[in-house]
């Protein structure tokens, strides 16, 4: 009786309590609430950043994803994921998904574009509008008057089909992708220095270094899972962060080098000077495997510690310490990201890093390398198969032999392959501005938000005769300007391969139904090929996996040769496979080493998953042979150039931009759809201000301020912190307002925009 009364008075159980009770989930997933108990589980590689984490997707009876967790057996992330990975399924269910094609109802070429005028139409009508408008433009203004801007966010097979369709089928020439905004510099730097765009490292190098030097990289926030690998390093490594800001990574480093913004090229040359002066270079390696060292040595002779300290703001003692780390530590790895890539002299800066690795012999061994951490999940796929700068598979458009080879492999007429490369992103926009390009097809990117000096980009897009946007959402800043919106399926709604930072091919699987009539980008390209009248040309591309087999053939004999990969199932079974990967017995272009540390592993993970033990972690250049014809890597250099827009009396601050939160991805078109990710990012734009500047301008914490540049202004809330230097401000790049401010400077080699530095003024509101 008492217990009945107790139960009545205190309900310790019931439906709400049951909701939270955890039950064994099976599939190695621990315990989950009953509602989320999976009927099956499968794996897929994450579709946000280039880390390429393996995710375990929890499926219900009908094979539909109901939840996910990071895959403990995956060689990249070892059971961890950042918040974006955890929330990867949420953006698929957003209410503003594009579910049918949308066509602007009032003709085309309107001076102002308004999303209200976009009306749902059938796919047939949409395809007709696509072909009619683009063909009309081509007839009137020539075949090269249409262009596309694509992305590093779609699978490799889709990138390749898009590039092939546009250039070989539709007769276009000018195309580029948003990888221009993140990775073009690394691409060009590696290609010029090594002879092929080949990031040499494997993530195991994070764990095997004695010293890690991060230059313009904040992995704690931008690549948390790579930072996890750094934290797994058992060698008590020196961790150096070269960054003007005391970032989260700099806080965790053993040495933070707070140099003046964009003085990194000078700093790196100064270190080269010191290493030579102290005879701390590896002469044997230089002589056997590199070219151009003497010229480089002569060039850096001027970069004396006194000069470098003066120009970079880094004390000479710190320069000496850096030189000592580089010269004396057994295994030094150098890592860079956007702080280097998004600069007015980005390519030479990346190559200055490469030069340091070459001259000290810190390459081709465990825990070494001049290593570019990539941005987007498939930037590496785009670099190899985007068909923009290089011909499909890392070939050269200007080389007749390459054109014939690619045409033969794909069963095309070689005459359909353009003999030159087209415009880069900024040049395409300039050509639109001039009226040379009249039709633009934007695929899975958000130019109207992300392009540098955004206001001008919007004005330029408004000049187009016909703008097609193919995206998951009809609500992106760019889609709202479109004449035609094509509804695309997203990550998790289609199949294909992504290539991560360490050259690992990973598989994306279809575990969710695309809403309405949305189609995978691959299917959309197939439909457009048919509608355009060039469907015959792409008959062999009947499915993503069929396309993968074509790409595999294209890779044969290239440094990126992955002909040893049988099929999707093979990739899946291995937890991703790094290129190069050739069949056993075939010649390996780079002769990758199977290092002792990586070789036969008997870790517990292999019990449940039969990984091919020796292929999990591989690095390049273990034999010192590079991809130039002479097998040597090149020392490349140029004198540093001044900042394109230095602060002055009117705009006295230098604005730095960068990633704000690990929960945000680029323009937020996906991450903003998750309430959890939104919660994990600041709700309003926050500008970091040094206390001295704040005191001078009578700005106190959380005050509203305005940041103005010559191009626009942005309102923000003040966060007063000495993690930025006096005279500098920091804004996270994800807010739409930030690129109103940025100054359109470009690296001359990579044409990558220099987002990281422009002159601004600051005032309290």
């Amino acid at each position, binding site marked *: 009786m008492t217990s009945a009364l107790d139960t009545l008075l205190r309900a310790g159980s019931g439906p709400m309590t049951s909701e939270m009770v955890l039950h064994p989930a099976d599939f190695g997933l621990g315990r989950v*609430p009953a509602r989320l108990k999976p009927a099956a589980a499968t794996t897929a590689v994450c579709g946000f950043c280039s880390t390429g984490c393996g995710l375990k997707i929890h499926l219900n009876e009908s094979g539909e994803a109901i939840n996910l967790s990071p895959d403990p*057996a995956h060689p990249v*992330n070892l*059971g961890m*994921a950042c918040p974006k990975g955890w929330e990867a399924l949420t953006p698929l269910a957003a209410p503003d998904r594009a579910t049918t094609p949308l066509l602007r109802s009032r003709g085309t070429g309107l001076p102002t574009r308004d999303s209200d005028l976009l009306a749902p139409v059938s796919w047939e009508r949409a395809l007709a509008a696509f072909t009619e408008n683009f063909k009309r433009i081509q007839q009137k203004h020539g075949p090269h008057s249409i262009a596309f801007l694509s992305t590093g966010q779609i699978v490799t097979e889709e990138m390749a089909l898009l590039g092939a369709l546009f250039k070989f089928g539709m007769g276009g020439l000018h195309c580029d992708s948003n990888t221009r905004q993140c990775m073009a510099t690394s691409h060009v730097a590696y290609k010029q220095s090594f002879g092929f765009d080949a990031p040499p490292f494997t993530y195991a190098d994070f764990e095997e270094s004695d010293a890690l030097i991060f230059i313009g990289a904040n992995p704690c926030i931008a690549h948390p899972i790579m930072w996890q690998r750094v934290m797994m390093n058992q060698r008590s490594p020196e961790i150096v962060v070269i960054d003007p800001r005391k970032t989260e990574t700099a806080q965790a480093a053993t040495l933070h080098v707070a140099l003046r913004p964009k003085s990194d090229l000078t700093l790196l040359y100064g270190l080269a000077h010191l290493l030579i002066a102290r005879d701390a270079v590896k002469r044997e390696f230089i002589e056997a495997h590199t070219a151009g060292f003497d010229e480089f040595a002569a060039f850096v002779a001027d970069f004396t510690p006194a000069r470098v300290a003066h120009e970079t703001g880094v004390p000479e003692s710190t320069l000496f310490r850096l030189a000592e780390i580089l010269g004396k530590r057994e295994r030094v790895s150098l890592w860079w990201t956007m702080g280097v890539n998004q600069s007015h002299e980005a390519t030479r800066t990346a190559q200055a890093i490469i030069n340091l690795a070459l001259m000290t012999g810190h390459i081709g061994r465990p825990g070494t390398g001049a290593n570019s951490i990539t941005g987007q999940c498939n930037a590496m796929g785009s670099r190899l198969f985007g068909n923009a700068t290089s011909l499909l598979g890392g070939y050269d458009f200007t080389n007749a032999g390459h054109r014939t080879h690619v045409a033969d492999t794909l069963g095309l007429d070689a005459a359909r392959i353009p003999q030159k490369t087209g415009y880069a992103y900024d040049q395409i926009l300039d050509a639109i501005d001039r009226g040379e390009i009249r039709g633009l097809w934007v695929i899975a990117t958000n130019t109207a938000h992300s392009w540098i000096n955004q206001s001008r980009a919007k004005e330029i897009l408004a000049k187009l005769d016909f703008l097609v946007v193919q995206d998951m959402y009809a609500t992106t800043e760019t889609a709202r300007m479109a004449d035609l919106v094509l509804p695309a399926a997203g990550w998790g709604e289609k199949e294909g391969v992504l290539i991560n930072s360490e050259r690992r091919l990973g598989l994306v*699987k279809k575990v969710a139904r695309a809403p309405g009539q949305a189609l995978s980008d691959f299917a959309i390209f197939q439909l457009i090929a048919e509608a355009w009248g060039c469907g015959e040309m792409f008959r062999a591309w009947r499915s993503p996996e069929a396309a993968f087999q074509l790409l595999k053939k294209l890779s044969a004999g290239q440094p990126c040769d992955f002909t040893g990969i049988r099929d999707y*199932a093979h990739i899946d079974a291995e937890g991703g496979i790094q290129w190069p990967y050739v069949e056993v017995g075939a010649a390996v272009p780079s002769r990758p080493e199977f290092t002792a540390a990586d070789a036969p592993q008997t870790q517990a993970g292999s019990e449940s998953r039969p990984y091919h033990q020796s292929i999990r972690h591989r690095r390049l250049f273990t034999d010192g042979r590079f991809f130039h014809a002479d097998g040597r890597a090149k020392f490349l250099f140029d004198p540093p150039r001044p900042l394109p827009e230095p602060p002055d009396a009117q705009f006295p601050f230098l604005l730095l931009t960068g990633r704000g939160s690990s929960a945000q991805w680029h323009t937020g078109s996906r991450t903003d759809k998750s309430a959890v990710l939104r919660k994990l990012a600041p709700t309003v734009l926050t500008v970091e201000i*040094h206390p001295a500047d704040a005191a001078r301008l009578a700005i106190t914490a959380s005050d509203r301020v305005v940041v103005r540049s010559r191009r626009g202004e942005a309102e923000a*809330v003040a966060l007063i912190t000495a993690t930025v230097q006096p005279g500098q401000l920091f804004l996270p790049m994800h807010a739409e307002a930030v690129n109103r401010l940025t100054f359109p400077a470009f690296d001359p080699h990579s044409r990558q925009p220099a987002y990281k530095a422009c002159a601004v003024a600051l005032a309290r509101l």
Partner: protein
Amino acid sequence: MVASKENFPLLAELLAEQQRLDTPVARFATAHAALSGSQLSTLSAQLRPQLLPLTAPRPGEQYAFEVDLDSCSGCKSCVAACHSLNGLDDTETWRDVGLLVSDDRRHPFSQTVTTACHHCADPACLNGCPVLAYEKDPLTGIVRHLDDQCIGCSYCVLKCPYDVPKFNARLGIVRKCDMCHGRLAHGEAPACAQACPTHAIKIVTVTVGGALCPDSVTTESEHKAPPTTFLPGAPDPSYTQPTTRYVSKRALPPTLVAGDHATLRPQAPHWPLVFLLTLVPAAVGTQLVALTQPDFVTYYVTNSAWLAGALGLAISVLHLGQPRRAWRVFLGWRQSWLSREALAFGAWFALSTLTLVLQSAFGIRHFAFPCATAALGAFALFCSVMVYADTRRAFWRFANTAPRFFGTAVVLGLAGALACGELGRTAMPGSPHWLGFALALATIAKLVFEARTVLPAHDDRNEVTPRLLTALLLTGPLRAFNELRLFAAVLGGVLLPLAIALRVAPPAFAWAALALSLLGELAERYLFFRAVDAPKMPGVGA
């Protein structure tokens, strides 16, 4: 060529293919994944010894979170993992990551801080719950919430200084972190701890009552400098004795403040409570004023007071997420001022009703009844004051809350009496003149008292205190309501009553005075809820 009939087959085929799940490719991993069975994945299993204590807590000990600040890099995976693995609702999170910053110019420093429920030794949520919906597990010390017991009053949300319990609108209850006790019981680490890429979160055993004692960490992390304080920038731990251990090998700069320490965060208005705490004081006040003039105890006054009380109490039910469970509200009377308040209001209303019934139906007008009713009402109001004072929020301290609540009673009691007197004019000689003067005086006194709240807004703003934040809220985001409050009080509580008392305005204007005074007090109570500085763990800026 345009899309034509012959393309339809391809389109139809592709659209159908797009909707087809469970493709061979999607199934690849399923078979071997199933082999691993219900055991935890190998890596997490390997980590278990690092993340969990090897033995159960002994008497005098409990489980606690330990956060290694040196390893926390602010990736926030813990928040997302907790959300996903516990199946929380779309907008629901039980963990949060904030930021500590230093404005020390020579030593730039920032520190990310992950935080969830601290499973306090003396939990304020538990102590405040009117229905005993919280329990502290005697073995593990985990502060658990009984979801089916909760009435959704959200008082724990106000009581917890760390902003831990979260109201779930779908369920109409509060939910919070339970340290994944269902995982711990099976040797599995909590979701946040499993998911931290740098293993910054783990479960340790701590000595209860010695939460801040340096010797209390009993894990292998003893080599780390034990914390001497809970965490800079966090609310005073002496109130609830949080058990979470924040450890760091580095000395944290003394100048650290929360990234959002100066952020103005208007709090939820709690409209039903605004009406409850305006109408019930009005009723009690009217009863009190009526006592001073036994002759004046009219039918109208008694009825109006009863009506206001009934209305206030009825509206207050809307505040509850699960009103059908509210009958259990008496359970917590030993510990919870909210439980006492509910009981006192219940008794007061019953007595008010009895008084009314005796008076109107039986003509019994014994003076003891209104006296007892008013006294009980005043006690209930005192309980109301204590409900807020007991949250230890600066703006809601006793010295600030009591004058406001009782001030409302006096002002609206006088205004009500003034109006009721007007209503009863034909039968009675009309309300005494002093009522008008008294109302004006009471309103002025209350306004002067309230004005002190906005004074810190003009102080030196270098030191951000809860009082300053309240002042800045009242003069910033809430300025319009503050001005409305002032306007209504000056016109309805001062000018009109004076005009009536001085016979410049007709007595019928008493109705306008009452309406405006009521509006002014509603606005004041609204600001009482919105302008409070709610303590919380460090958040991010803005």
